[in-house]
């Protein structure tokens, strides 16, 4: 029996996938509909796929109202239609990618462990159980994997520190508080391939000797909360989690904990305080969480994408993963193309591709059709780059060398109608809203920053120096990256788009 496939990914749902699923159930109740993750081609969502002898054939974007026409055109046989895109794998956007973390996303039923196994899932966990902690640590170190949350710290070193710490209890904490605008890769993993994250956390548990894991998941992702929680129940029922994972001597279990709308809880020490039931305020480091983390115990805190890269590293070996990449940035990065972009979505690629290739060749330029004026890379704390810097290779060091950062891999594109003084002001205002209040440069500096930019745009003299000094203080005086990195968008906007800060020269908002 021919099956249909349709994402239950939040983006697909937000543009009509559930209504389409309802229409399919009414129009062809005998056709099984599998709800999958998303392939990551956002402009084609909802992307409906049908099983045919030539493989799966995609149609997108499809609204419920389009269904009668599609059925008449022979949807169930893969018939011709203006929305037919052919085999999704052959689509240039997917064909150009190197999908490791996202190899299953969009293909499988996220809650079917059989599907997961059939698509090479659990191979890494089995191998980890067979080789033991020391060899797992060596494989992760050999992979060159660095923290995908933004800081880029070598995962192997972090794990070895926790493994070496003596304590009655250790924890694996997954940072799923993906709050950066322009990022959604964590959400796509949790909604589209949740067993991958569970497997990565279980392997981390074996490597460092932890038996309990927590996923700190933001409340803005109700779909991910539901799917990941369901997947954990399935994993427990089928022995992937519990007292003897996959029948081994290793115990590991995990829980989802839901955040409550605080951006700063994406900072690892705030996140730990929040998990402990406190206000999510930043802790001074040292001690590192690897030594004194959750409830004072040694704790691995890793981003979703870091943990999701682990199963394949264990299955194929660290060296195979390290064979991809550029300089000190090894492996692949799930880049997220967002904002004013024609072909937005998830593009997993080895490090080293240039920013310009991502924005123009892959993303197709702006959705508005106007010229690109600026891109913000790495979320609200990342720098704004003009097209003149589009030759920058996408890796940690190249961006740092140009006073930028890749952060969690999000790229937000703006066309030539953007007011960069307004964006700089927003960076300060956002910092003021989300500051945890613990350190003065962030708590007060952000509010003063908004005021200085307002005065600058109004033509009060001497404000540029004041803004630069303030940014210097925030950069070096703040406890964490919220206050410390807010100067990146502000100073880059000022440096590359000074005309927007100059009254008389700046184009006033339309």
């Amino acid at each position: 029996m021919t099956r249909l496939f349709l994402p239950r990914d939040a983006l697909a749902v937000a543009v009509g996938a559930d209504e389409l699923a309802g229409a399919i159930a009414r129009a062809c109740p005998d056709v099984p509909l599998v709800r999958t993750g998303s392939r990551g081609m956002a402009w084609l969502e909802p992307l409906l796929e049908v099983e045919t002898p030539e493989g799966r054939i995609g149609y997108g974007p499809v609204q419920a109202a389009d269904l009668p026409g599609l059925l008449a055109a022979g949807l169930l046989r893969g018939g011709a239609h203006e929305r037919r895109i052919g085999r999704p794998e052959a689509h240039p956007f997917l064909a150009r990618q190197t999908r490791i973390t996202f190899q299953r996303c969009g293909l499988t039923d996220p809650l079917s462990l059989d599907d997961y196994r059939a698509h090479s899932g659990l191979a890494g966990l089995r191998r980890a159980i067979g080789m033991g902690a020391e060899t797992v640590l060596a494989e992760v170190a050999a992979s060159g994997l660095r923290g995908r949350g933004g800081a880029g710290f070598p995962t192997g070193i972090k794990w070895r520190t926790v493994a070496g710490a003596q304590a009655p209890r250790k924890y694996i904490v997954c940072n799923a508080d993906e709050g950066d605008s322009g990022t959604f890769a964590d959400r796509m993993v949790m909604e589209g391939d949740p067993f991958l994250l569970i497997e990565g956390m279980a392997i981390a548990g074996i490597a460092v000797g932890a038996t309990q894991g927590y996923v700190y998941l933001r409340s803005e992702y109700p779909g991910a909360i539901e799917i990941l929680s369901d997947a954990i129940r399935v994993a427990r029922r089928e022995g992937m989690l519990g007292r003897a994972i996959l029948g081994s001597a290793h115990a590991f279990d995990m829980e989802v904990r839901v955040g409550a709308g605080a951006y700063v809880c994406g900072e690892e020490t705030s996140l730990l305080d929040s998990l402990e039931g406190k206000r999510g305020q930043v802790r001074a480091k040292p001690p590192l969480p690897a030594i004194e983390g959750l409830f004072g115990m040694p704790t691995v805190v890793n981003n979703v994408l870091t943990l999701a890269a682990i199963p394949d590293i264990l299955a194929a070996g660290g060296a195979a993963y390290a064979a991809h990449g550029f300089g000190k940035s090894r492996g692949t990065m799930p880049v997220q193309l967002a904002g004013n972009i024609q072909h937005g979505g998830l593009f997993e690629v080895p490090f080293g591709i240039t920013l310009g290739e991502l924005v123009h060749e892959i993303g197709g330029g702006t959705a508005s059709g106007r010229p690109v004026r600026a891109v913000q890379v790495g979320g609200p704390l990342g720098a704004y780059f003009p097209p003149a810097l589009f030759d920058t290779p996408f890796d940690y060091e190249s961006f740092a060398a140009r006073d930028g950062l890749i952060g969690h891999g999000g790229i937000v594109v703006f066309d030539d109608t953007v007011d960069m003084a307004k964006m700089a002001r927003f960076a300060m205002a956002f910092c003021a809203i989300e500051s945890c209040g613990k350190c003065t440069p962030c708590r007060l500096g952000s509010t003063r920053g908004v005021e200085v930019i307002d005065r600058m745009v109004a033509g009060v003299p001497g404000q540029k120096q004041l803004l630069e000094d303030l940014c210097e203080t925030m950069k070096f005086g703040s406890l964490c990256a919220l206050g410390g990195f807010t100067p990146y968008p502000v100073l880059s906007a000022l440096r590359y788009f000074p005309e927007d800060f100059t009254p008389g020269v700046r184009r006033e908002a339309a």
Partner: protein
Amino acid sequence: MSEPEIAARVRDIIEPLTVLEGPAMPMLHAVQAEFRCVPEAAVPVLAETLNRSRAEIRGLISFYHDFRDTPPGRTVLKLCRAEACQSRGGEALAAEAQAALGVGWGETTPDGAITLEPVYCLGLCAAAPCGMVNDRPVARLDRARLAALTEARS
């Protein structure tokens, strides 16, 4: 519900959660799921159960944007104000929503139908501008889709 009734109900809700490590946040979420806010009468119960001061519990409620001390309108409409949505005209759309509803951020229409709130990123940034109607995500918002959302009052 009277205050003692609320307190008794809160006790029932949070009692099963006392076995958790760090139960405060799950408890606050559970209480809010029941009452659509964390009522004042819940504070002393939470404080007693968690062996924390009432000030600390109030501190949690005020720190996290999600927790409320009064219930919102029947529908909560959240519009994203973060960069990706701004790049696609999110701010202009938000201004239209405010004008259509006659409310500012964080306010509720006089008939109690809709509360309008800002949100900073819903992870739908490749289909901006976006928002959320209660727990249902909505994306590729434009004037017509927004009008349908603001007019559909339950």
